[in-house]
Protein backbone atom coordinates (compact mmCIF):
# COMPACT_ATOMS: atom_id res chain seq x y z
CA UNK A 1 0.00 0.00 0.00
CA UNK A 2 2.69 2.45 1.09
CA UNK A 3 4.87 1.49 -1.83
CA UNK A 4 2.01 1.96 -4.22
CA UNK A 5 1.52 5.39 -2.75
CA UNK A 6 5.15 6.18 -3.33
CA UNK A 7 5.07 4.75 -6.79
CA UNK A 8 2.12 6.88 -7.78
CA UNK A 9 3.92 9.80 -6.24
CA UNK A 10 6.67 9.93 -8.80
CA UNK A 11 5.87 11.06 -12.30
CA UNK A 12 7.04 8.14 -14.35
CA UNK A 13 5.18 5.24 -12.68
CA UNK A 14 2.13 7.44 -12.44
CA UNK A 15 2.36 8.16 -16.11
CA UNK A 16 2.67 4.50 -16.97
CA UNK A 17 -0.02 3.23 -14.64
CA UNK A 18 -2.46 5.92 -15.63
CA UNK A 19 -1.74 5.11 -19.24
CA UNK A 20 -3.49 1.80 -18.74
CA UNK A 21 -6.16 3.19 -16.42
CA UNK A 22 -7.24 6.05 -18.61
CA UNK A 23 -9.00 4.19 -21.43
CA UNK A 24 -11.03 2.17 -18.94
CA UNK A 25 -11.99 5.33 -17.09
CA UNK A 26 -12.90 6.99 -20.35
CA UNK A 27 -15.17 4.14 -21.42
CA UNK A 28 -16.90 4.06 -18.05
CA UNK A 29 -17.43 7.81 -18.18
CA UNK A 30 -19.00 7.66 -21.59
CA UNK A 31 -21.22 4.74 -20.61
CA UNK A 32 -22.45 6.28 -17.37
CA UNK A 33 -23.00 9.74 -18.79
CA UNK A 34 -24.82 8.54 -21.89
CA UNK A 35 -26.98 6.02 -20.04
CA UNK A 36 -27.75 8.63 -17.40
CA UNK A 37 -28.52 11.32 -19.95
CA UNK A 38 -30.81 9.18 -22.07
CA UNK A 39 -32.56 7.86 -18.99
CA UNK A 40 -32.93 11.29 -17.49
CA UNK A 41 -34.12 13.04 -20.61
CA UNK A 42 -36.16 10.26 -22.17
CA UNK A 43 -37.56 8.00 -19.49
CA UNK A 44 -37.56 9.67 -16.10
CA UNK A 45 -40.98 11.07 -15.27
CA UNK A 46 -41.60 14.81 -15.21
CA UNK A 47 -42.28 16.36 -11.84
CA UNK A 48 -45.95 16.86 -11.06
CA UNK A 49 -45.27 20.43 -9.96
CA UNK A 50 -42.31 21.59 -12.01
CA UNK A 51 -43.01 19.66 -15.14
CA UNK A 52 -40.19 19.06 -17.60
CA UNK A 53 -37.88 21.66 -16.08
CA UNK A 54 -37.02 19.19 -13.35
CA UNK A 55 -34.70 17.50 -15.82
CA UNK A 56 -32.13 20.20 -15.20
CA UNK A 57 -31.67 18.46 -11.88
CA UNK A 58 -29.75 15.69 -13.63
CA UNK A 59 -26.99 18.11 -14.47
CA UNK A 60 -27.35 20.51 -11.59
CA UNK A 61 -27.16 18.16 -8.64
CA UNK A 62 -24.22 16.06 -9.89
CA UNK A 63 -22.20 19.09 -10.86
CA UNK A 64 -22.86 20.71 -7.48
CA UNK A 65 -21.90 17.62 -5.54
CA UNK A 66 -18.79 16.83 -7.58
CA UNK A 67 -17.71 20.46 -7.43
CA UNK A 68 -17.55 20.28 -3.67
CA UNK A 69 -15.76 16.96 -3.73
CA UNK A 70 -13.20 18.38 -6.10
CA UNK A 71 -12.35 21.13 -3.66
CA UNK A 72 -11.86 18.49 -1.03
CA UNK A 73 -9.64 16.45 -3.31
CA UNK A 74 -7.68 19.52 -4.29
CA UNK A 75 -7.07 20.50 -0.68
CA UNK A 76 -5.97 16.98 0.20
CA UNK A 77 -3.50 17.11 -2.67
CA UNK A 78 -2.29 20.41 -1.25
CA UNK A 79 -1.78 18.91 2.20
CA UNK A 80 0.12 15.98 0.73
CA UNK A 81 2.35 18.36 -1.16
CA UNK A 82 3.05 20.46 1.91
CA UNK A 83 3.87 17.50 4.11
CA UNK A 84 5.70 15.10 1.80
CA UNK A 85 6.72 17.51 -0.96
CA UNK A 86 5.63 15.04 -3.60
CA UNK A 87 5.79 16.96 -6.84
CA UNK A 88 2.88 15.18 -8.37
CA UNK A 89 0.61 16.40 -5.61
CA UNK A 90 1.34 19.93 -6.73
CA UNK A 91 0.43 18.99 -10.26
CA UNK A 92 -2.72 17.28 -9.02
CA UNK A 93 -3.73 20.41 -7.15
CA UNK A 94 -3.03 22.63 -10.11
CA UNK A 95 -5.06 20.43 -12.43
CA UNK A 96 -8.01 19.90 -10.12
CA UNK A 97 -8.68 23.60 -9.66
CA UNK A 98 -9.90 24.51 -13.16
CA UNK A 99 -12.10 21.42 -13.32
CA UNK A 100 -13.59 22.22 -9.95
CA UNK A 101 -14.14 25.82 -10.97
CA UNK A 102 -15.89 24.75 -14.17
CA UNK A 103 -18.13 22.32 -12.33
CA UNK A 104 -18.99 25.01 -9.82
CA UNK A 105 -19.79 27.36 -12.64
CA UNK A 106 -21.95 24.69 -14.22
CA UNK A 107 -23.82 24.20 -10.96
CA UNK A 108 -24.33 27.93 -10.67
CA UNK A 109 -25.51 28.24 -14.26
CA UNK A 110 -27.87 25.29 -14.19
CA UNK A 111 -29.17 26.41 -10.82
CA UNK A 112 -29.84 29.85 -12.18
CA UNK A 113 -31.59 28.45 -15.24
CA UNK A 114 -33.65 26.20 -13.03
CA UNK A 115 -34.42 29.04 -10.68
CA UNK A 116 -36.10 31.16 -13.33
CA UNK A 117 -39.09 28.84 -13.93
CA UNK A 118 -39.38 27.54 -10.36
CA UNK A 119 -38.72 30.65 -8.28
CA UNK A 120 -39.24 33.33 -10.87
CA UNK A 121 -35.75 34.71 -10.28
CA UNK A 122 -32.35 33.86 -11.62
CA UNK A 123 -30.73 34.34 -8.29
CA UNK A 124 -31.70 34.57 -4.65
CA UNK A 125 -29.34 35.23 -1.81
CA UNK A 126 -29.97 31.88 -0.26
CA UNK A 127 -27.30 30.28 1.86
CA UNK A 128 -26.62 27.35 -0.38
CA UNK A 129 -26.46 29.43 -3.52
CA UNK A 130 -24.19 31.94 -1.91
CA UNK A 131 -21.92 29.32 -0.46
CA UNK A 132 -21.59 27.81 -3.91
CA UNK A 133 -20.59 31.23 -5.17
CA UNK A 134 -17.96 31.42 -2.42
CA UNK A 135 -16.70 28.01 -3.41
CA UNK A 136 -16.25 29.40 -6.89
CA UNK A 137 -14.19 32.29 -5.49
CA UNK A 138 -12.01 29.88 -3.57
CA UNK A 139 -11.27 28.00 -6.78
CA UNK A 140 -10.53 31.24 -8.59
CA UNK A 141 -8.18 32.29 -5.82
CA UNK A 142 -6.29 29.01 -6.11
CA UNK A 143 -6.10 29.24 -9.88
CA UNK A 144 -4.90 32.83 -9.86
CA UNK A 145 -2.28 32.19 -7.22
CA UNK A 146 -1.04 29.03 -8.89
CA UNK A 147 -0.78 30.70 -12.28
CA UNK A 148 1.41 33.41 -10.79
CA UNK A 149 4.50 31.48 -11.75
CA UNK A 150 4.36 28.32 -13.73
CA UNK A 151 6.26 25.35 -12.44
CA UNK A 152 7.70 27.20 -9.46
CA UNK A 153 7.75 25.04 -6.38
CA UNK A 154 7.49 28.02 -4.08
CA UNK A 155 4.29 29.20 -5.67
CA UNK A 156 3.07 25.62 -5.56
CA UNK A 157 3.54 25.52 -1.83
CA UNK A 158 1.89 28.88 -1.42
CA UNK A 159 -1.11 27.64 -3.35
CA UNK A 160 -1.24 24.45 -1.35
CA UNK A 161 -1.25 26.48 1.86
CA UNK A 162 -4.14 28.52 0.58
CA UNK A 163 -6.09 25.48 -0.52
CA UNK A 164 -5.67 23.87 2.89
CA UNK A 165 -6.56 27.04 4.78
CA UNK A 166 -9.60 27.43 2.55
CA UNK A 167 -10.72 23.97 3.52
CA UNK A 168 -11.72 25.39 6.87
CA UNK A 169 -14.34 27.31 5.02
CA UNK A 170 -16.22 24.33 3.63
CA UNK A 171 -17.87 23.15 6.84
CA UNK A 172 -18.23 26.73 8.03
CA UNK A 173 -20.12 27.60 4.90
CA UNK A 174 -22.32 24.60 5.48
CA UNK A 175 -23.09 25.73 9.03
CA UNK A 176 -23.87 29.19 7.79
CA UNK A 177 -27.10 27.72 6.47
CA UNK A 178 -28.28 27.65 10.07
CA UNK A 179 -27.15 31.12 11.00
CA UNK A 180 -28.55 32.46 7.83
CA UNK A 181 -32.08 31.24 8.24
CA UNK A 182 -32.29 32.09 11.91
CA UNK A 183 -31.42 35.61 10.84
CA UNK A 184 -33.44 36.33 7.81
CA UNK A 185 -36.72 34.58 7.84
CA UNK A 186 -37.70 36.69 4.85
CA UNK A 187 -36.24 34.18 2.43
CA UNK A 188 -39.11 32.04 1.28
CA UNK A 189 -37.10 29.38 -0.48
CA UNK A 190 -35.49 26.49 1.18
CA UNK A 191 -33.23 24.00 -0.49
CA UNK A 192 -32.44 22.22 2.72
CA UNK A 193 -35.35 19.81 2.51
CA UNK A 194 -34.84 16.96 0.18
CA UNK A 195 -37.67 16.59 -2.25
CA UNK A 196 -39.03 13.14 -1.70
CA UNK A 197 -38.32 11.62 -5.04
CA UNK A 198 -39.73 8.50 -6.60
CA UNK A 199 -37.19 5.84 -7.49
CA UNK A 200 -37.61 6.46 -11.23
CA UNK A 201 -36.23 9.95 -10.72
CA UNK A 202 -33.71 9.03 -8.10
CA UNK A 203 -31.94 6.20 -9.88
CA UNK A 204 -30.92 8.08 -13.04
CA UNK A 205 -29.70 10.82 -10.74
CA UNK A 206 -27.37 8.37 -9.02
CA UNK A 207 -26.10 7.22 -12.42
CA UNK A 208 -25.43 10.83 -13.39
CA UNK A 209 -23.61 11.56 -10.15
CA UNK A 210 -21.40 8.54 -10.73
CA UNK A 211 -20.88 9.68 -14.32
CA UNK A 212 -19.82 13.13 -13.16
CA UNK A 213 -17.35 11.66 -10.70
CA UNK A 214 -15.89 9.49 -13.43
CA UNK A 215 -15.76 12.48 -15.72
CA UNK A 216 -13.91 14.47 -13.09
CA UNK A 217 -11.33 11.77 -12.56
CA UNK A 218 -10.88 11.24 -16.27
CA UNK A 219 -10.22 14.89 -17.04
CA UNK A 220 -8.14 15.25 -13.91
CA UNK A 221 -5.81 12.38 -14.64
CA UNK A 222 -5.63 13.42 -18.27
CA UNK A 223 -4.51 16.94 -17.43
CA UNK A 224 -2.12 15.70 -14.77
CA UNK A 225 -0.46 13.62 -17.47
CA UNK A 226 -0.26 16.59 -19.79
CA UNK A 227 1.25 18.71 -17.07
CA UNK A 228 3.80 16.01 -16.25
CA UNK A 229 4.91 15.99 -19.86
CA UNK A 230 5.12 19.75 -19.83
CA UNK A 231 7.31 19.83 -16.75
CA UNK A 232 9.48 16.83 -17.52
CA UNK A 233 9.79 17.13 -21.25
CA UNK A 234 13.56 17.14 -21.02
CA UNK A 235 13.91 14.05 -18.93
CA UNK A 236 15.08 10.72 -20.31
CA UNK A 237 11.94 8.73 -19.71
CA UNK A 238 9.65 11.15 -21.47
CA UNK A 239 11.81 11.07 -24.56
CA UNK A 240 12.01 7.33 -24.30
CA UNK A 241 8.27 6.80 -24.04
CA UNK A 242 7.45 9.12 -26.87
CA UNK A 243 10.06 7.81 -29.24
CA UNK A 244 8.87 4.26 -28.85
Amino acid sequence: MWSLFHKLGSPRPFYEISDRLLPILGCLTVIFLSVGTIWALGFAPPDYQQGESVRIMYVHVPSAIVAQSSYMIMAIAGAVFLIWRIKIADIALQCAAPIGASLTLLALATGAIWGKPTWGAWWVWDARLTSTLILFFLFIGVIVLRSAKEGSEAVGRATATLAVVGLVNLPVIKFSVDWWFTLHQSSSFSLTEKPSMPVEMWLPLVVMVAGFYLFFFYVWIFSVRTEILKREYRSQWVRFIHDV
Partner: protein
Amino acid sequence: MLETIRRDLLLHFRKPADILNPLAFFVLIISLFPFGVGPSASILSEISAGVIWVAALLTTLFSIDMMFKSDYEDGTLEQIVLGKESLLLVVYGKVFAQWLVGGLMITLMSPLFGMMFYVNNDGIFATALALMLATPTMTLLGSIGAALTLGLNKGGVLISILVLPLYLPVLILGVAMIDSAIVGDDYVGHVFWLAAILVVSTGFAPLATELGIRISLSE
Protein backbone atom coordinates in the same frame (compact mmCIF):
# COMPACT_ATOMS: atom_id res chain seq x y z
CA MET B 1 -0.09 56.27 -28.15
CA LEU B 2 -1.12 53.03 -29.80
CA GLU B 3 2.23 51.61 -28.79
CA THR B 4 1.56 52.60 -25.20
CA ILE B 5 -1.83 50.94 -25.22
CA ARG B 6 -0.32 47.84 -26.73
CA ARG B 7 2.47 47.74 -24.16
CA ASP B 8 0.22 48.31 -21.19
CA LEU B 9 -2.24 45.69 -22.36
CA LEU B 10 0.68 43.32 -22.79
CA LEU B 11 1.79 44.00 -19.24
CA HIS B 12 -1.74 43.44 -17.99
CA PHE B 13 -1.97 40.17 -19.83
CA ARG B 14 1.37 39.10 -18.44
CA LYS B 15 -0.27 39.09 -15.07
CA PRO B 16 -3.76 37.89 -15.86
CA ALA B 17 -4.52 38.81 -12.29
CA ASP B 18 -4.42 42.44 -13.38
CA ILE B 19 -7.52 41.78 -15.42
CA LEU B 20 -9.18 39.18 -13.26
CA ASN B 21 -8.61 40.98 -10.02
CA PRO B 22 -10.67 44.11 -10.52
CA LEU B 23 -13.49 41.95 -11.77
CA ALA B 24 -13.29 39.51 -8.91
CA PHE B 25 -12.98 42.38 -6.50
CA PHE B 26 -16.07 44.05 -7.92
CA VAL B 27 -17.95 40.80 -7.67
CA LEU B 28 -16.77 40.25 -4.12
CA ILE B 29 -17.72 43.67 -2.79
CA ILE B 30 -21.15 43.34 -4.30
CA SER B 31 -21.67 39.84 -3.03
CA LEU B 32 -20.65 40.87 0.47
CA PHE B 33 -23.71 43.04 0.75
CA PRO B 34 -26.38 40.40 0.78
CA PHE B 35 -24.42 38.85 3.63
CA GLY B 36 -24.34 42.08 5.48
CA VAL B 37 -27.79 43.30 4.68
CA GLY B 38 -29.75 40.12 4.35
CA PRO B 39 -31.30 38.49 1.32
CA SER B 40 -34.60 40.32 1.29
CA ALA B 41 -35.46 41.24 -2.28
CA SER B 42 -37.11 44.51 -1.40
CA ILE B 43 -34.13 45.96 0.46
CA LEU B 44 -31.63 44.60 -2.03
CA SER B 45 -33.34 46.12 -5.02
CA GLU B 46 -33.67 49.38 -3.14
CA ILE B 47 -29.95 49.66 -2.49
CA SER B 48 -28.80 47.96 -5.69
CA ALA B 49 -27.88 51.10 -7.63
CA GLY B 50 -25.93 52.45 -4.69
CA VAL B 51 -24.07 49.23 -4.07
CA ILE B 52 -23.13 48.70 -7.70
CA TRP B 53 -21.89 52.26 -7.95
CA VAL B 54 -19.91 52.21 -4.76
CA ALA B 55 -18.36 48.94 -5.85
CA ALA B 56 -17.46 50.32 -9.27
CA LEU B 57 -15.94 53.34 -7.63
CA LEU B 58 -13.84 51.39 -5.17
CA THR B 59 -12.70 48.94 -7.83
CA THR B 60 -11.52 51.77 -10.05
CA LEU B 61 -9.74 53.40 -7.16
CA PHE B 62 -7.85 50.30 -6.23
CA SER B 63 -6.73 49.31 -9.61
CA ILE B 64 -5.64 52.84 -10.39
CA ASP B 65 -3.16 52.72 -7.54
CA MET B 66 -0.77 50.58 -9.54
CA MET B 67 -1.17 52.56 -12.73
CA PHE B 68 2.17 54.40 -12.64
CA LYS B 69 3.69 52.76 -9.62
CA SER B 70 5.60 49.97 -11.31
CA ASP B 71 6.87 52.31 -14.04
CA TYR B 72 7.99 54.67 -11.33
CA GLU B 73 9.76 52.13 -9.23
CA ASP B 74 11.78 50.45 -11.92
CA GLY B 75 12.83 53.71 -13.53
CA THR B 76 10.80 53.33 -16.74
CA LEU B 77 8.83 56.47 -16.00
CA GLU B 78 12.03 58.51 -16.13
CA GLN B 79 12.74 57.02 -19.51
CA ILE B 80 9.30 57.97 -20.73
CA VAL B 81 9.60 61.52 -19.47
CA LEU B 82 12.99 61.92 -21.15
CA GLY B 83 11.92 60.24 -24.38
CA LYS B 84 10.84 61.99 -27.56
CA GLU B 85 7.33 60.58 -27.38
CA SER B 86 4.99 63.11 -25.81
CA LEU B 87 4.27 62.33 -22.18
CA LEU B 88 0.70 63.49 -22.63
CA LEU B 89 0.06 60.92 -25.31
CA VAL B 90 1.59 58.22 -23.13
CA VAL B 91 -0.78 59.26 -20.35
CA TYR B 92 -3.77 59.01 -22.70
CA GLY B 93 -2.60 55.59 -23.76
CA LYS B 94 -2.11 54.35 -20.22
CA VAL B 95 -5.49 55.67 -19.11
CA PHE B 96 -7.19 54.00 -22.02
CA ALA B 97 -5.50 50.66 -21.40
CA GLN B 98 -6.37 50.93 -17.75
CA TRP B 99 -10.00 51.60 -18.57
CA LEU B 100 -10.15 48.66 -20.96
CA VAL B 101 -9.15 46.16 -18.28
CA GLY B 102 -11.07 47.88 -15.49
CA GLY B 103 -14.00 50.13 -16.22
CA LEU B 104 -15.10 48.44 -19.40
CA MET B 105 -15.11 45.03 -17.78
CA ILE B 106 -17.12 46.32 -14.86
CA THR B 107 -19.62 47.85 -17.23
CA LEU B 108 -19.99 44.61 -19.10
CA MET B 109 -20.54 42.69 -15.86
CA SER B 110 -23.02 45.07 -14.34
CA PRO B 111 -26.16 43.56 -15.91
CA LEU B 112 -25.43 40.31 -14.12
CA PHE B 113 -25.53 42.05 -10.78
CA GLY B 114 -28.52 44.05 -11.73
CA MET B 115 -30.30 40.72 -12.11
CA MET B 116 -28.94 39.33 -8.87
CA PHE B 117 -30.27 42.39 -7.08
CA TYR B 118 -33.71 42.09 -8.69
CA VAL B 119 -33.44 45.27 -10.75
CA ASN B 120 -35.86 45.49 -13.68
CA ASN B 121 -34.72 45.60 -17.29
CA ASP B 122 -34.89 49.35 -17.70
CA GLY B 123 -32.79 49.75 -14.61
CA ILE B 124 -30.25 47.25 -15.85
CA PHE B 125 -29.87 49.01 -19.16
CA ALA B 126 -29.53 52.39 -17.47
CA THR B 127 -26.91 51.01 -15.09
CA ALA B 128 -24.78 49.75 -17.93
CA LEU B 129 -25.17 52.98 -19.85
CA ALA B 130 -24.33 55.10 -16.82
CA LEU B 131 -21.26 53.01 -16.03
CA MET B 132 -20.14 53.18 -19.64
CA LEU B 133 -20.18 56.95 -19.44
CA ALA B 134 -18.84 57.24 -15.93
CA THR B 135 -16.06 54.69 -15.64
CA PRO B 136 -13.77 56.52 -18.10
CA THR B 137 -14.26 59.66 -16.05
CA MET B 138 -13.36 57.76 -12.91
CA THR B 139 -10.20 56.38 -14.51
CA LEU B 140 -9.23 59.81 -15.79
CA LEU B 141 -9.73 61.50 -12.45
CA GLY B 142 -8.11 58.63 -10.63
CA SER B 143 -5.01 58.92 -12.76
CA ILE B 144 -4.46 62.43 -11.39
CA GLY B 145 -4.40 61.08 -7.88
CA ALA B 146 -2.16 58.20 -8.89
CA ALA B 147 0.34 60.58 -10.47
CA LEU B 148 0.38 63.00 -7.57
CA THR B 149 0.96 60.36 -4.91
CA LEU B 150 3.69 58.54 -6.82
CA GLY B 151 6.74 59.46 -4.85
CA LEU B 152 4.96 59.37 -1.56
CA ASN B 153 4.84 55.63 -1.23
CA LYS B 154 1.48 55.93 0.47
CA GLY B 155 -0.51 53.73 -1.77
CA GLY B 156 -4.11 53.55 -2.67
CA VAL B 157 -5.66 54.95 0.42
CA LEU B 158 -4.22 58.42 -0.05
CA ILE B 159 -5.42 58.40 -3.64
CA SER B 160 -8.91 57.61 -2.42
CA ILE B 161 -8.91 60.59 -0.18
CA LEU B 162 -7.78 62.88 -2.96
CA VAL B 163 -10.03 61.52 -5.62
CA LEU B 164 -13.23 60.40 -3.94
CA PRO B 165 -14.57 63.93 -3.51
CA LEU B 166 -14.13 64.40 -7.24
CA TYR B 167 -16.14 61.26 -7.85
CA LEU B 168 -19.14 62.38 -5.87
CA PRO B 169 -20.92 64.34 -8.63
CA VAL B 170 -20.59 61.37 -10.94
CA LEU B 171 -21.85 59.03 -8.25
CA ILE B 172 -24.86 61.17 -7.45
CA LEU B 173 -25.76 61.67 -11.10
CA GLY B 174 -25.33 58.01 -11.90
CA VAL B 175 -27.46 56.78 -9.04
CA ALA B 176 -30.13 59.35 -9.84
CA MET B 177 -30.15 58.19 -13.44
CA ILE B 178 -30.60 54.55 -12.50
CA ASP B 179 -33.31 55.34 -10.01
CA SER B 180 -35.19 57.34 -12.64
CA ALA B 181 -34.86 54.49 -15.06
CA ILE B 182 -36.17 51.95 -12.57
CA VAL B 183 -39.36 53.86 -11.96
CA GLY B 184 -39.69 54.51 -15.69
CA ASP B 185 -38.83 58.21 -15.80
CA ASP B 186 -36.93 59.95 -18.53
CA TYR B 187 -33.18 60.19 -18.00
CA VAL B 188 -31.82 61.95 -21.05
CA GLY B 189 -30.71 64.86 -18.91
CA HIS B 190 -28.56 62.63 -16.76
CA VAL B 191 -26.98 61.03 -19.78
CA PHE B 192 -26.20 64.45 -21.13
CA TRP B 193 -24.52 65.55 -17.93
CA LEU B 194 -22.49 62.39 -17.55
CA ALA B 195 -21.31 62.72 -21.14
CA ALA B 196 -20.41 66.36 -20.60
CA ILE B 197 -18.36 65.51 -17.54
CA LEU B 198 -16.63 62.80 -19.50
CA VAL B 199 -15.72 65.16 -22.32
CA VAL B 200 -14.37 67.77 -19.96
CA SER B 201 -12.29 65.32 -17.99
CA THR B 202 -10.93 63.72 -21.17
CA GLY B 203 -9.71 67.15 -22.14
CA PHE B 204 -8.22 68.25 -18.86
CA ALA B 205 -7.44 65.35 -16.54
CA PRO B 206 -4.45 64.04 -18.54
CA LEU B 207 -2.88 67.49 -18.41
CA ALA B 208 -3.07 67.41 -14.64
CA THR B 209 -1.80 63.83 -14.64
CA GLU B 210 1.18 64.79 -16.79
CA LEU B 211 1.99 67.62 -14.43
CA GLY B 212 1.64 65.26 -11.48
CA ILE B 213 4.10 62.83 -13.00
CA ARG B 214 6.66 65.54 -13.62
CA ILE B 215 6.29 66.80 -10.09
CA SER B 216 6.63 63.34 -8.59
CA LEU B 217 9.74 62.62 -10.61
CA SER B 218 11.61 65.81 -9.78
CA GLU B 219 11.77 64.69 -6.18
